[in-house]
């Protein structure tokens, strides 16, 4: 059976039909869909994060369950991934990616004995995810809890990054006298590895010391975390999002309450991963490394990047085809949404430049797992954002760990469910703004859903 699936998996229409039979025959919870699927149907894989120790921590296992896009849009369909799903092999919340057609799920195990292991699965409906290809680990290059993302190059490449830091101190040749010691800078060494997703092998790995300006370094700033690599339109540069931290240069101890610098991105040649440079925005301040969901996307020749922890509220920043921040593009979410302290938790544009964006703000209620989240419909060209009111919100609706949106044409699929309560798949037509309530998501205590793939 497995080999049959492998042979025909590119013939979407047959695969979907077969997959649907498999899922129906193996699982009683899903309402059978007798209508043969149309060719534009695709798999929607729902990701669910079970509670570990605390409600909403998502550390109790990441579960996957796939249904057809027709079923996903059908509010009479009900699925229960926590009871019937496939548990992704990851010690902590798995960081998942899917192929553009939804037929393959890519996973790199996060922490634990197999942390850093890359595996891919053919999606066959329901709880059926068949491992394909050989296993490879990126742990030797970027550690066992890697920050990785799939690049948008036709599902060919994944990239993962790591940063390690070391404080450099000049003791003025008086090793016993501390008072004349001078903090010089903190060296941030980054490592980046690219992974061949098709052949399950390592493509390239490079390490670089990435300095800031002399003044920034003297003040104690350094790159403390990097994440979310993305390719430019020409495919000759890769951008890496970054977070800055700061030490007190007097004592080399961690500082707090300091001035937040302009948002920064590390730029490397691609595919060689050489020649690091740092670019700085004068529009946005704060981090560009996101959290668990892809934070920067290519649209219409430029890369659009969200930032976080911006004192003025999150921005969407633009990096032009010249690989520099386009500071003429000023898209502030506080202004666009009319809120204070907007914080972009996850987002995803469709090909039309219109995006669905998950956010919280200073007015969010404090729910069981943290600040309440909302969805907005965003237009990158018009720089507008509007809260999507057709999706129900609850104080316990929590989007910090939100990872995935499926883009199917102009439609974007998302999951909605407060921590510990049932919810639904929602499909947003980004062109018209019409929101369709889809399949019911059956939840369990303390747990939540982290998106669609």
């Amino acid at each position, binding site marked *: 059976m497995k080999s049959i699936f492998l042979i025909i998996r590119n013939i979407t229409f047959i695969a979907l039909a077969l997959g649907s039979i498999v899922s129906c025959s193996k699982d009683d919870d899903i309402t059978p869909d007798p209508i043969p699927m149309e060719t534009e149907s695709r798999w929607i894989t729902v990701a669910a994060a079970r*509670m570990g120790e605390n409600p909403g921590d998502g550390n109790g296992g990441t579960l996957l369950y796939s249904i057809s896009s027709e079923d996903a849009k059908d509010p009479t369909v009900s699925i229960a991934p926590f009871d019937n799903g496939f548990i992704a092999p990851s010690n902590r919340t798995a960081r998942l990616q899917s192929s553009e057609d939804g037929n393959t799920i890519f996973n790199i195990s996060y922490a634990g*004995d197999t942390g850093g292991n890359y595996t891919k699965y053919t999606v066959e409906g329901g709880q059926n995810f068949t491992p394909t290809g050989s296993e490879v680990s990126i742990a030797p290059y970027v550690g066992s809890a890697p920050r990785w993302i799939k690049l948008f190059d036709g599902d060919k490449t994944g990239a993962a990054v790591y940063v390690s830091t070391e404080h450099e101190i000049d003791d003025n040749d008086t090793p016993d006298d501390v008072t004349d010691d001078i903090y010089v800078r903190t060296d941030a060494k980054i490592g980046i590895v690219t992974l061949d997703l098709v052949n399950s092998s390592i493509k390239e790995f490079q390490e670089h010391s990435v300095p800031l300006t002399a003044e920034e370094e003297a003040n104690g700033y350094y790159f403390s975390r990097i994440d979310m690599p993305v390719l430019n339109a020409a495919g000759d540069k890769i951008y890496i999002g970054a977070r800055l931290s700061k030490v007190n240069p007097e004592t080399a101890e961690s500082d707090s309450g300091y001035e937040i610098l302009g948002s920064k991105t590390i730029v490397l040649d691609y595919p060689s991963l050489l020649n690091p440079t740092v670019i700085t925005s004068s529009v946005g301040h704060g981090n560009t490394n996101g959290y668990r969901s892809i934070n920067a996307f290519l649209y219409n020749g430029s890369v659009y990047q969200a930032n976080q922890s911006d004192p003025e509220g999150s921005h969407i920043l633009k990096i032009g085809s010249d690989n520099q921040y386009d500071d003429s593009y000023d898209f502030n979410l506080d202004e666009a949404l009319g809120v204070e302290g907007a914080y972009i938790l996850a987002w995803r544009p469709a090909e039309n430049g219109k995006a669905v964006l998950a956010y919280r703000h200073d007015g969010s209620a404090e729910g069981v797992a943290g600040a309440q989240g909302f969805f907005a419909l965003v237009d990158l060209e018009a720089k507008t954002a509007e809260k999507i009111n057709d999706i129900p919100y609850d104080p316990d609706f929590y989007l910090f760990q939100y990872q995935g949106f499926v883009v199917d044409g102009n439609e974007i699929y998302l999951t909605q469910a407060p921590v510990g309560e049932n919810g639904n798949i929602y499909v947003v037509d980004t062109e018209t703004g019409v929101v369709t309530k889809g399949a019911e998501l059956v939840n369990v205590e303390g747990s939540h859903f982290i998106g669609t793939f």
Partner: protein
Amino acid sequence: MKINNNFLVPLFCMVLLTTSYELTAQVNKLSGFVFGPSNEPLVGASVIVDGTQLGTVTDVHGAFQITDIKNGEYTISTSYIGYKTESKKIAVHADTQVKFNLMENAAELSMVVIQGTTEKTKIEKEGFAVDIIDTKEAGQRNIQTNELLNSSVGVKIRQNGGLGSNVEYSLNGLSGSAVRIFIDGIPISTFGSSFNLNSIPPSMIDRIEIYKGVVPGHLSDDALGGAINIVLKSSTNNHLNASVSYGSFNTLQASFNGLYRYDNSGFTVKASGFHNYSDNDYKVSGRSVLVTGLGGVQTPITARRFNDAYSSTGGVIQLGYTDVKWADQFYIGYTGSSNYKEIQHGAFMTISPYEGRFTQSEASLVNLSYQKQDLFTKDLDLTINGYYGKRNTQVIDTVTWAYNWAGERAIDFRGNEYKYSWGSQQEGGPTEARIDRNVASIRTGLSYSINDHHKILFNHVHNRIDREDSDKLRSVLENTFLGTRDLYKNIVALTYEVNAFDERLKTSLFGKYYQQKTISVDPAIEIGSDGVKKIVDEVVSSNKINNGYGFALSYAIIPEITLLTSAEKAVRLPNETEIFGSDGDNVVANSSINPELSKNFNLGFRFGSFKLNNHQLVVTTNLFTRNIKDRIGLPIETSLNVDDELILYVNQGSGTSKGIDLQFNYTYNKKLFFNFNVSKFDLKIENRGVEIDVPNTPFHTMNANLQYSFKDLIQKKSKLDLFYSLSFTDEFSYIVPQGSNTVGDDFFKVPNQLAQDLGVSYTLPKKDIVVSFDVKNIFDKPVYDNLSVQKPGRAFYLKLNYSIYKF
């Protein structure tokens, strides 16, 4: 020797030690030994002073002691099963010593009637949920102290690899800092990782007391889930034991302990020492034991661990006086130990084994101990035990090259040997971090028996740890601004013991007062009025006070059925990291954090011993619940705190553990011994209204031990013992329980484990030499303790013991 008879106020000890005083000796003490024909100690022999109510039984060294004998002439009789009863006429006008050598009586051997009570049985009948492990037999075999604990009911050892690896102890499901471990009542944190249950051989230990849930006043500490007390040998008989063991994985273990007492002066020299070494190069395999080739292609292998060696050496020497007028025991001593342990991997076995990462630690402590019964007045007993010294721990990780499980330099996808980006084996960067601690711990106990039925006990323990961190690989500037942490703990316990109805009812009521002061000193730079930079210390302190109380009760419903029940409101004070945070992990201080509290209940029965002809049976069972409140933990990462330097420990949620322990002991004709125990519990925690089963918890374990003794098998008067033991751990998962129909669960499961060991010991006729051979894990089954970390497979060990009891 009666460990819970002695208690005291700290002030008292100062007064007593510095003031000379005279005893009005109206009564005398009679002490001595009961040996067999070859001077082997007879344990549990009864000693009676004819015509009086006085009598006792001998301890594991054959020693006995009868106090309160008035001047006069007496007939002392001693008897032991299988030996002829012997009597001696003795004139007692001062403290007197007497020795018996009993002859074997073959005829009596078939009539087994056991009378008298051993220390073990005595403690076990006090009402606490307690297990006493007698180490006499294990001390002669190739058995580690930790293995001994692990086979005890309700106890589970989680060890991260082979001999010398990190160990965590779980009592009825509660583990980590909820379980306090003591050596002679002194918290093990005083001794550090070089003098601990990994390194101390069972032959240095007299017995191990395991108190579950409810801890008696004389061991008081903030032990939320229970306490394990290692009682080192303390008999005052002249003896010398030495042993050496060698076996698989180049494991060598040697130990000795001896005591010599000058009868005239009472001057006593006592010394013990140990040395352990193991390569721990046992075979491992599994999904992460691989070698990576070009492009990252993985080939699974069976590998030998190559960076796991362990070495520890230590010793105790004590000089003083025993059984003299002014002291039963008075010692001044020195304890020194050092430890070296290579680290093969982190919490999990991953595809990147460590090379060259290791820890080393040293401890150097001076010790003072004093014991006196009938101090100043009859029935006032005093015990003092104190340690003061230094200890340090260092973690070294400076090798930058990557290694694979074949023990060779690993190659990257291009085929080149490579260095880790983070410059060390464990992610996080190279380290030579060193923690230096000054430690002091003193426990004092005073007890007073009002009459035969009422007793008051007072106990105080003071514990102090000053901690300083440094890292050679960091600059002086960075090291200077690492803070120091000092912790002082005072715990006072008051216990009232009653026994009534002809000893059928025994109760003990206790209250405990906890005080903990923690001080953090963080140096900071300040610019003085003269414009010159200077370093000033920012001092923050926190003082926590709490109370606890509890009781233990035993009631013999009929002589063969005893009800044992106990309860305690137990407290665990927050530790220094929980209060002050940790610079490295961006955790800041929360001085308002509350202690963890737990209401612990035990309800048990002891059935037995039932005797029928040569059969003897004892069954004990305990039902328990633990109800924890205000568990201390870190909050979850949210968008509000992900970039913060402001994470702090908080009190969050509650937890419960409920379960049953059952133990079954059967003896036939003093030849066949069978012990079986089973333990099962449910451990749940609740956070913000949601309850979950705690993952990575072996909730169901079973152990069985079988021993058969042959006498006169090869040589007359020799003894051959055969041992078989089995330990079973049920399957458990290291993620929380999943839904009914999920797939992929197997990835997280630690499969059920069954290990079986065989052993044989041969005791030569003179009983001075014992040779033991043990095979561990005879069927070479994969065994895991912690998060799927594999433990050694089949292994063989040979041990030679030499003992002299007469000089």
